[in-house]
């Protein structure tokens, strides 16, 4: 099995008391997005079986997690390419499974692998289609953007989605992992091999950048939002 490596530019959030709500849903508020201990335990058992040589046990992991990986990739690269990248994600995961750290959830590890593939895919697509500097034009034709537009339920959501589309691939990926997939800073820092503080700083910068694109200004010290 071949180990794989990949480090995305990491972003971090800096929760401060009395400021914006904690980044990402709390487990109590959104339990559906939090993996149960049972699922995490089942993942560890199945990973151990794969490491012991039971290749077919990997199919259980694929079945269990493909839905989340595909939906995550759909948001990043669009429906057309999501399934292909989902396949690539699982194959890469199998090849690198000896490097999986069972301290962290298996799903988070998969999401990071998928995200790296997505970032590379988007970067290559942008270069191929219209060149690296024409991000606005690319964003208009971006399948992922079209998906987001179609699914947006109101104008605010659409505004957010447009702002997200304008992020660099790495920044977009990190936003999705941190805020939509709710990977913890510790988990992300581990996967990206950076310190947790460094990750938090970059997530904070990401939030500032996103807020600015939406016409808002975040006061860094007070952590409060003021209209820009």
């Amino acid at each position: 099995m071949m180990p794989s490596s990949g480090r995305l530019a990491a972003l971090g959030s800096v929760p401060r008391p009395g400021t914006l709500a904690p980044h990402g849903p709390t487990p109590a508020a959104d339990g559906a997005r939090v993996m149960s201990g049972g699922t995490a335990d089942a993942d560890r058992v199945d990973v151990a079986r794969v490491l012991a040589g039971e290749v077919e046990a990997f199919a259980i992991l694929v079945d269990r997690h493909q839905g989340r990986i595909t939906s995550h990739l759909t948001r990043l690269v669009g429906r057309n390419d999501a399934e292909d990248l989902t396949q690539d994600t699982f194959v890469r995961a199998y090849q690198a499974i000896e490097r999986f750290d069972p301290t962290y959830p298996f799903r988070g590890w998969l999401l990071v692998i998928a995200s790296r593939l997505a970032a590379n895919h988007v970067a290559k697509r942008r270069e191929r289609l219209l060149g690296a500097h024409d991000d606005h034009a690319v964003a208009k034709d971006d399948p992922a953007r079209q998906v987001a537009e179609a699914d947006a339920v109101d104008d605010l959501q659409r505004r957010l989605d447009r702002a997200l589309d304008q992020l660099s691939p790495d920044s977009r990926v990190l936003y999705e992992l941190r805020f939509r997939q709710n990977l913890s800073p510790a988990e992300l820092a581990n996967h990206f091999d950076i310190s947790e503080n460094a990750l938090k700083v970059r997530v904070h910068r990401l939030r500032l950048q996103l807020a600015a694109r939406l016409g808002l200004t975040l006061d860094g010290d007070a952590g409060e939002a003021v209209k820009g």
Partner: protein
Amino acid sequence: MDRDRLLDLIDHPAPDPDTPRNPVLTHQVMERVRHAHAQAQVTTQAPSSDVRPWLMGALLIALIALVTPITGLVSDGGLGEAASLFDGDLIVELVIGSLIAVTALALSWRRLA
């Protein structure tokens, strides 16, 4: 109001529902995984584990073949006279010794391959 909602949306984007399980995707993944597994098995079954005795043996033969003429030379005449005794016979012995060494290494290399 919009500002607060936007800020809330930044920190709490709407989750996407999981895509329904696709058994075809699982099948395609496992095909590739099995292929990767088979490739890995071929690599690990390469004769790397039984190379060492052969390689060590070849190196030992090479060393003996090269050292023997010199050792004999030194024991006969001492180091001080080694240069003067570096004659045609010695050269022949050294060449033969080198050929034995190279042959031993070549045979072990073929075994590796």
